[in-house]
């Protein structure tokens, strides 16, 4: 009984891990590898947070088949991505392209880090200057020396 349950669980795990049907795969291993990579780059528009490589949605299946068709027809990888973007927009790319309207997305965090860092640097430098500029009066200097020496005597 246990063995049967275990076998069933293993079988289920295997199907969940691989949404690509054996029937979809291409005979040519290098084309198939490119197809898998491209599928991982493309968003499933039905489930949105999965790539079409991971998704079991019907549309994801259709797009996987389409990618393989385009590759077999001799398209390059960028051409396949272009084909998808023309129909579904940049949203289909899981990695947003670096272009004018995504500069804030790509460079915003670095800009914030630089602004914060500059502010912190400026503040720290100002504080250090204000501390080092206070000098001791001669009396205070004497008292400090006396106290320090006193401390030394006690330790000996």
């Amino acid at each position, binding site marked *: 009984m246990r063995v049967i349950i275990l076998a069933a669980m293993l079988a289920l795990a295997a199907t969940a891990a691989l949404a690509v049907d054996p029937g979809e795969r291409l005979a040519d291993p290098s084309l198939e590898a490119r197809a898998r990579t491209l599928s991982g780059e493309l968003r499933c*528009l*039905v489930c949105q947070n999965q790539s079409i490589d991971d998704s079991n949605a*019907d549309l994801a299946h*259709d*797009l996987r088949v389409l990618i393989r068709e385009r590759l077999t027809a001799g398209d390059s990888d960028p051409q396949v991505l272009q084909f998808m973007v023309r*129909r*579904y*927009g*940049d949203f289909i790319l899981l990695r947003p392209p670096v272009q004018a309207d995504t500069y804030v997305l790509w460079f915003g965090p670095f800009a914030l880090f630089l602004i914060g860092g500059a502010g912190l640097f400026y503040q720290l430098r100002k504080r250090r200057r204000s501390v080092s500029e206070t000098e001791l009066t001669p009396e205070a200097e004497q008292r400090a020396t006396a106290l320090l020496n006193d401390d030394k005597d006690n330790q000996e």
Partner: protein
Amino acid sequence: MRRLIYLLPAVAFVALAAYFFVSLTRDPSVLPSAMINQPTPAFALAGLGDQPGLVRDEFAGQVVLINFFASWCIPCRTEHPLLMNLSRELSVPLYGIDYKDKPEDAARFLGELGDPYRRIGADREGRVGIDFGVYGVPETYVIDKTGRIRLRHVGPLTPADVARELAPLVKALQRS
């Protein structure tokens, strides 16, 4: 005055929080379309059963509505009564594309609920759908006289959608 600069992070935080809060109320399933103002993709589809099919080029020179539907699609049933009157209401031809469906199922669906379409193309493989950027049915497109896609509506149409989006656009396009 110089002290105000210390408020800047707080102000930036409030602005971001407000933006995120507003974004929470937006529907993430409605995606921007890459096909707006693009020429309608070419297609030539067979009809359902022995009925005549649908070819892109026959729309030339007129404003038309194209509705992607399927017999297996539940929201399409919600939308259907509205479609029955839509063509007459807006005085614009409504064409149907039966998306990834068996022709006999579609025929049963339309026999049961009525057929609002001037003509229907059967997109059995869903390839025409992919060319349009369809990611779920129902979707409705408005095509202008020059054959460009001017509006895409994702999900079932409601009377409010028709009054707010479709009717004014169709009227404006027909005048132009």
